[in-house]
């Protein structure tokens, strides 16, 4: 078990290294990071001096080493716009993004898992049909359109819920529902197909033949086995949610990392962008590591690989 865990940990470190390189490289995509960072009206002299001061004339690997060293200490430089350390700007907005992503995931799980189970158990009935259609619509809908439509309905038309900002639970409802719809749809479909597959297995038939009544069959035997792909998806979906929060936060003016990043890119404030991408990617890697550990408890066979 420990060897599996250490192996996964080492893999995660390698991935983190790769992530840091990509984040570093974004600034060098055009070949001259000085031109990217400076305003377009900077003189050739300013550009040259800036390049010297920032160390852009040093060898590529030296620059990367410097970046990596800084990143590991949490130093991504100063925000060009705000003058504060980029890392702090990002870090103080992480809780808001987590709150949003967490709420969205919670809504998704609470709605999707029961819906998927009921769909599978009551296959091909009206309720299955309805939930399948809704799930399909949910996966086909662009979230930002849903957000705008929800604002139109609940904020503009009926004045029920606020359309922007963060504060009370009411502020959380619309953004969380918007963000969570796609995930809800996805998990519903997966739960349904996972349950259907498990329910057709021999050991379920045996349990039923033995006379075990349906609820224990469904809950004890079927769900535990169907849980494995669901747990995997939760890990992946968290990444999707963290990314999807970018758009949702922009629409609802939610003060999270996503909104900060979009503004930073519009302002060409790349230290902030680098810090944000790096932190979010690190979070995703850690979550996946945790998911893998949970995995080994659900499926002991994994440990032996």
């Amino acid at each position, binding site marked *: 078990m420990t060897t599996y865990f250490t192996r996964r940990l080492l*893999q995660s470190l*390698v*991935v*983190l290294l*790769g*992530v840091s390189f*990509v984040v570093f490289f*974004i*600034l060098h*995509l*055009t070949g001259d990071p000085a031109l*990217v960072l400076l305003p377009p009206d900077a003189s050739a002299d300013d550009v040259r001096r800036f390049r010297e001061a920032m160390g852009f004339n040093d060898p590529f690997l030296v620059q990367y080493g410097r970046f990596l060293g800084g990143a590991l200490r949490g130093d991504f430089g100063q925000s060009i716009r705000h003058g504060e350390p980029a890392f702090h700007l990002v870090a103080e907005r992480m809780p808001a993004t987590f709150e949003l992503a967490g709420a969205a995931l919670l809504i998704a799980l609470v709605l999707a898992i029961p819906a998927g189970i009921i769909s599978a158990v009551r296959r091909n009935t009206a309720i299955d049909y309805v939930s399948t259609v809704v799930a*399909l*619509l949910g*996966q*086909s*809908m*662009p979230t*930002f*359109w849903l957000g*705008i*439509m929800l*604002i*139109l309905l609940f904020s*503009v038309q009926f004045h029920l819920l606020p359309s922007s900002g963060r504060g009370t639970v009411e502020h959380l409802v619309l953004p969380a529902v918007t963000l969570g719809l796609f995930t809800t749809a996805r998990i519903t479909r997966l739960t349904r197909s996972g349950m259907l597959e498990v329910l057709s297995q021999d050991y379920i038939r045996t349990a039923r033949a033995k006379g075990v009544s349906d609820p224990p069959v469904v809950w004890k035997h079927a769900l535990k086995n169907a849980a494995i*792909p669901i747990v995997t998806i939760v890990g*992946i979906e968290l*990444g999707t949610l*963290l*990314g*999807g929060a*970018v*758009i949702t936060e*922009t*629409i609802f003016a939610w003060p999270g990392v*996503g909104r900060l*990043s*979009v503004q930073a*890119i*519009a302002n*060409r404030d*790349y230290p902030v*962008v680098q810090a*944000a*991408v790096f932190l*979010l*990617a690190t979070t*995703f*890697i850690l979550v*996946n590591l945790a998911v893998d550990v949970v995995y080994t408890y659900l499926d002991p066979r994994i440990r032996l690989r």
Partner: protein
Amino acid sequence: MSVPATAIALPEATGAPRREWLVFARRLAARRTALFGAVVVALVLVTALAAPLLSPFDPLAQELGDQRLKPPGWRDAAGRVHPLGTDHLGRDVLARVMFGARPALLVGFAAVVISGMLGLAAGLVSGYFGGRVDDVLMRLADIQLAFPFILLAIAVIGVLGPSLATIIVVIGVSSWVVYARIVRGAVFSLREREFVQAALALGSGDGRVLLRHVLPNVLTPWLVVATLDMARVIVIESALSFLGLGVQPPDPTWGGMLADGRVYITTAWWLATFPGLAILVTVLGINLFGDGLRDTLDPRLKV
């Protein structure tokens, strides 16, 4: 006693594969949802291709006088009806929605081709050769997946500058992983099959085996992934256009129209509603068709 030499009737060399396609097509068409999806996609495609012919108005023609923000069904001074209303610059919404199908489908198709090719190559190599090559490629996949895609896309586009080509390349290059995984999985199971082993035993090189024996058999799951991925790409394109990072105004994009419409949400609901519906309908059609494709070809595909 001599056995009379009877000619064994063999199926025509061209007969068997032709019939196979027909069987498949018929089975696919029998699924009504898939058929519906295919029809919807065909309609969107025709609209995109024939937009200049079909559209009642010029999508770029501004009318800044008193034609701004008119509701659906409004009749203008010349007596022509604007079925979906006009936007904040007096442009006909229906025309813009129709022309907006062009960048959506173009990006969808081009990005899928790029990521599909990259993923196919990676999956084939990874699955067939295994070992260190597989390790390295899967590590690259993990790195790719660790990034919240939208954030990476806007960072890169922010540096390179927004344009149609940029978003195609950015989306295409970063979406290869799902193709690679499916192809890799398929190659794993194909590797051990008799026809592959036979080809190798007969002296075929790895390259030949990969191209002639393995590749044709992984195209099926690859196709399912490509179809469903196209839907995802279209949504991403509209998201990037929404943020102003796609095709630049005044060229109409569904995402761009949504961004404009958001500003006028309180006074002109139609500006944001119709482009969003266009995205929804297109993506739904592709998803229905893709699901049907998957269920017909291999229902157990975990896609």
